Each structure stands twice: as C-alpha cells, then as structure tokens.
C-alpha cells in the first residue's frame, strides 16, 4: 500500500447561506490548495461529493467546477455521496499509482429546499417514498426501537447533546452550541418523539476541501503529515424493516477492516446525525468509554449534508496535525438510519 497523508483541510458551515454554491466553495477550495503548499496545477486529481437534489438543479455538480479551477482540463470525478466517499475514490486512485495527489471537495446547501422531503427520495421508491417519511421520522423510529430494547436511554441521548454543544463552543464552524444540563435537555418537548430538537442534526449550508498527497512529498509539504492507515466502507440492506435497527453491522465491519480496533485511539470524530446513533456507533466500532468522541461537537453542532463526513475526517486530521493526539478514528455515515458507513484511521507522523 502507498502511504497517503492529509496535508490540508478547510471548511465553512453556516445556518443559512445567501451565497450560491460556487461562492461558498471558492474560498474553501482556495484555502485548502494554498495550505497544501502545492500549486493548483501540481494536484493530479480532483474528486467531489454532492447531491443535485439539494440545489434542485440537474448537473449542479458540474457547475461547481467553476470554484476549483478546471483549465487546462483536469482529471476529475464526482460521487453522489458525502465527500468522505470522494476521498475514498481519490485514495484508491492514488493506490493504483496513476496519481500522487488529489483535491477533494464537497458542498451542501439544504436551506433552499425542504430537507425532509428531499431525503425521502433516498428511500425505496415503490413502498416507502410514496409515504414521504422524513429522516427525523425514520431516525426517531430507530431511536424508539433502541429505547425499547434497552440499548440506549433518553438520559444517555441527552448526555450526548449536553457534551457536544459545549464542545462546539471552541469550534468556529459550529452553528449550534451552548451549555445545557442533561435535566434541562430532558425537560424540552419532543420534536419527533422520542427525539427532541437537540437530538437531531444542526442542519447547515457549507463546503469542504482537502488535499491528500502520497509518500515523501507529503513530508516535504507539512511539519506533521497525517497518514491514512486504514480505510473501508460498507453498507447495510436498504429495507428498514429487514434491519435490526439496534445494530449497525456495516459500521462494525468497516471499523474492523480499517484496523481501527488493532491499536488504541486517542479520540474519534464520527458522523452521528442523531444522538442515539453516537451510542450505537461507539458500540459497533469498539470505541471505549474513555475515548473522547467528537471534540468538534459533531453533527449536533453543524451538519452540512454531503460535507459532514469529510468534515469529521478533516477535523480529526487537523487535530492530530496540531499535536493534539497521535491516532484517531474518523467516520462518515449516510442514508436512512446510517445505512452506509465509512471508517478511516489516521496517524500523525
């Protein structure tokens, strides 16, 4: 395997953007390229993740290329997924030896539409989408399955939020933050029972960009390269009623295949849009109670759809690069009740 390092990362998240997608992405991509130390034309490959459904514009992902520069013609690809999966494609392409470096970017602006309706289009088009369940509803159904099975408690869910929102106070990219006691949170009304507002993602608009480089070149470019030591993604069956919603087998397999459990990790950055999902993910991926999870505040602090997974990876990498930890697990999750899970293991030089 070729060693690949994350050498730079930039993101922006805002509650509601008036800028268009190109204007959101341009400064973020420029910042990541500049911080990488590479000139734009030295980056071999460009790969992005986004969804045209959020913009309501066919081929919106092509128009976003204005924000990253594409002349002379570049080698480019796109996935209709969180940017974390675009990073996976770039990493695989580097493994083939065809390229040595890549710019990965993603963006999501959900504020123009009704995210609940748009996400219902991800579900089974014959038997589920015609009923138009939003993700808050299907996640609430999962939460109640977990509560009924005794796998989580409402108090534990509130503890996740009560820890994430103060953590987010140090994160300039968080859109929801503050100090709350578990009792205060439990006293709030349900928004989609048994979920309360703070159990649900802090939806935001934004963009993310990252540069990865293979081998010794990465060591020349930064003081402390953050190496990708393991990388895997897996998927569970699509039918919600077929899955045991208290389990996330795809997350467990991805973590094991990525080698996350082989050695101790100093912290984890994971994509848990709903508070109960953090508890499930911890258990499935073997993250011990003593390991700090989501020092960024995670999705409860800012959840830019299509970018949040890549943000978790970038947040973890920047934390290691600054010397705050040596080995971390980062995770991206997508789909109804976290159907798709991706795990990456990062290690500082």
């Amino acid at each position, binding site marked *: 395997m070729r060693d690949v390092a994350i050498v730079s990362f930039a993101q922006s998240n805002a509650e509601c953007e008036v800028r268009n997608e*190109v204007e959101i992405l341009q400064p973020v991509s420029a910042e990541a390229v500049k911080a990488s130390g590479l000139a734009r034309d030295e980056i071999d490959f460009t790969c992005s993740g986004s969804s045209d459904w959020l913009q309501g514009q066919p081929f919106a992902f092509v128009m976003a290329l204005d924000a990253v520069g594409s002349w002379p013609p570049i080698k480019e690809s796109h996935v209709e997924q969180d940017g974390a999966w675009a990073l996976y494609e770039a990493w695989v392409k580097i493994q083939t030896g065809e390229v040595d470096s890549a710019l990965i970017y993603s963006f999501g602006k959900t504020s123009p539409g009704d995210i609940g309706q748009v996400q219902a289009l991800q579900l089974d088009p014959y038997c589920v989408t015609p009923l138009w369940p939003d993700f808050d509803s299907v996640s609430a159904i999962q939460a109640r399955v977990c509560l009924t099975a005794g796998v989580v408690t409402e108090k534990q869910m509130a503890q996740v939020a009560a820890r994430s929102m103060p953590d987010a106070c140090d994160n300039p990219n968080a859109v929801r933050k503050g100090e709350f006691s578990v009792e205060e949170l439990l006293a709030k009304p349900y928004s989609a029972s048994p979920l309360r507002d703070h159990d649900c993602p802090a939806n935001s608009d934004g963009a993310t960009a990252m540069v990865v480089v293979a081998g010794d070149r990465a060591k020349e470019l930064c003081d402390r390269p953050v190496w990708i030591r393991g990388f895997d993604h897996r998927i569970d069956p699509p039918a919600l009623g077929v899955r045991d919603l208290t389990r996330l087998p795809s997350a467990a397999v991805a973590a094991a295949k990525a080698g996350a459990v082989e050695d101790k990790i100093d912290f984890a950055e994971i994509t848990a849009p709903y508070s109960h999902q953090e508890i499930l993910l911890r258990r499935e991926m073997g993250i011990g109670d003593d390991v700090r999870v989501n020092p960024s505040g995670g999705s409860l602090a800012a959840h830019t759809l299509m970018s949040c997974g890549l943000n978790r990876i970038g947040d973890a990498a920047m934390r290691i690069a600054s010397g705050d930890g040596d080995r971390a697990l980062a995770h991206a999750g997508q789909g109804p009740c976290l159907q798709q899970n991706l795990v990456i293991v990062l290690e500082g030089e």
Partner: protein
Amino acid sequence: MGIRSGTAGVLVPPVEYDPQTAEALEDFVDVGPGGEVISYTWVSRPRPLQPLQRPFAYALIKLDGADSSLLHIVDVGGDAVKMEIGMRVAPRWKAERKGEITDIEAFVAEGEARPAPPVLGGDLRPVKSIITPVRLEYDFSAGREQSIFLRALATGKILGARSPGGDLVYVPPRGADPRTAEPTPELVEVSDKGTVVTYSIIRVPSENIDFELPYVCINVLLDGSDIPFFHVLQNCELDAVRLGMRVRAKWLPPDERVESVESIQYFEPIDEPDVPFEDFKEYC
C-alpha cells in the same frame, strides 16, 4: 403479501433477493392483515405530501405471519397518547385501489378496522409502473454576483465579471473564474449587441415558452464579453439565420423590466456587416 427467504423468514414488503445470500426469492405467502406496532414516531405537523394532513404516526408494523416489519402510518385520530408499542393494528383500505402502497390509507387500531375488501382475483399481469407525484419547492438564492447581474437587467444593463488579470469577461458572472477558480469581484458592463456564434431552430413546444413555433435559439457573443449568452432570436426569417450575423437585445419598456433575463424579450437582427468566422470560431 410477503415472500419467504432462506435466511430471514417472511419479508414484507417482498424483496426479489435474499438480503444475505442474494438467492432469488419466489415463494409468496399471505400475511396480516393485522399486525403489531414495533416502533413509531409522532408527526404533529404533517408536510403537504405526507399521507394524512392531521397528526399521525409513522410506524414499523410487524404483520401477522411476517418476520420483518413494514413502514407505514397509523391513524389514531390525531391523539398521540393512543399510540403504544405492541398495539394491534389493521389496514384501512382506500375505496379505490390501484396496486400501490398508498392503497392502504393508514393502519388503525384493530378493533376499528373493517374487513378487507374483496380481492380482485386472478390478475397476474405484471405492474409495469407506479406513479408517485413529486413536488419539491426551492427558495433559490442566486448568490452575490448573479444578484448584481439580475438587478442590472432591471435597469437595462448586462454585466459580466472580469477575470483576475483582466483578459476575459464572463456573462453571466458566477463568482469565480472557471479556469483558475480565482474570485471575480470586478463587474463590467458589456454591450447588448453581439454576434450569433451558433443557433438552433426549435420545432417542439415547451410548457413554459410562449414563442410561436418554429423559433430560433441563439448563442450570442455580446460585444465586450468572452462567453456566449443564450437567448431567442425574432424578426428574422428562418433561412436567413446564420453564424456571424449581428443582433441586438430587444428590451421590455423600462417600467416593465424585472430582475430576470426576461427583461430582454428577444434578440433581433441589426443592419451591420457579418463578422468573419475566423474572428469567432473559438466561441462556436
């Protein structure tokens, strides 16, 4: 109706392949119609497309005889306290059924359900398609530079963005130079006259276009810009349209102009000599 799988029992709705082994499945079995609520959430403010327009529950329902559960809705008359795990429910059918999941209007408490309507037996024709109406609304924000462009159209001006370094002007401005990704904060006015660099004659109707068929769409390179601009050509015989011809925007009267390209009604030919192909071939 469910389907029997080798590894997961009877699955409802039926799936074509076993979720674990991918074995093709074909053993259909009757299930329900009654069942048990496995989990639910309460929807207090239904969205427009959702099946009921008063509060209801989305629920996972395990139908009698099934091993997986079905996602559907439960109608308890808007009273959330009537929902509980393990409650018995049965379908309330629509009077007119089409072979769609929404033929079940909602599940209701089993005691309130009426007997299932007679099954129209013997129809084994494959269902070739179903229709799910989709209506998504967006509050589109044009962005910073395009907003300036649109506001200028309301005043009868066409603006472009000058590339950093100044050699090219993009119309409309989008916020960045597509070659280099540098921001393009400098906006300049370009002419409303230009040269046709390509065209197409439209003979098929389109719902939201009022022009009489056939009509001509053009890509016009406005004087002072470096990207062709898309619009419609009028007041020109079809066989007179040609590459290189000179045209000009026909604007709405000033008090009717709005923040939209519709402020330009169309382009029309003007009495200027054609531009030689060599001079615009890069833009075709």
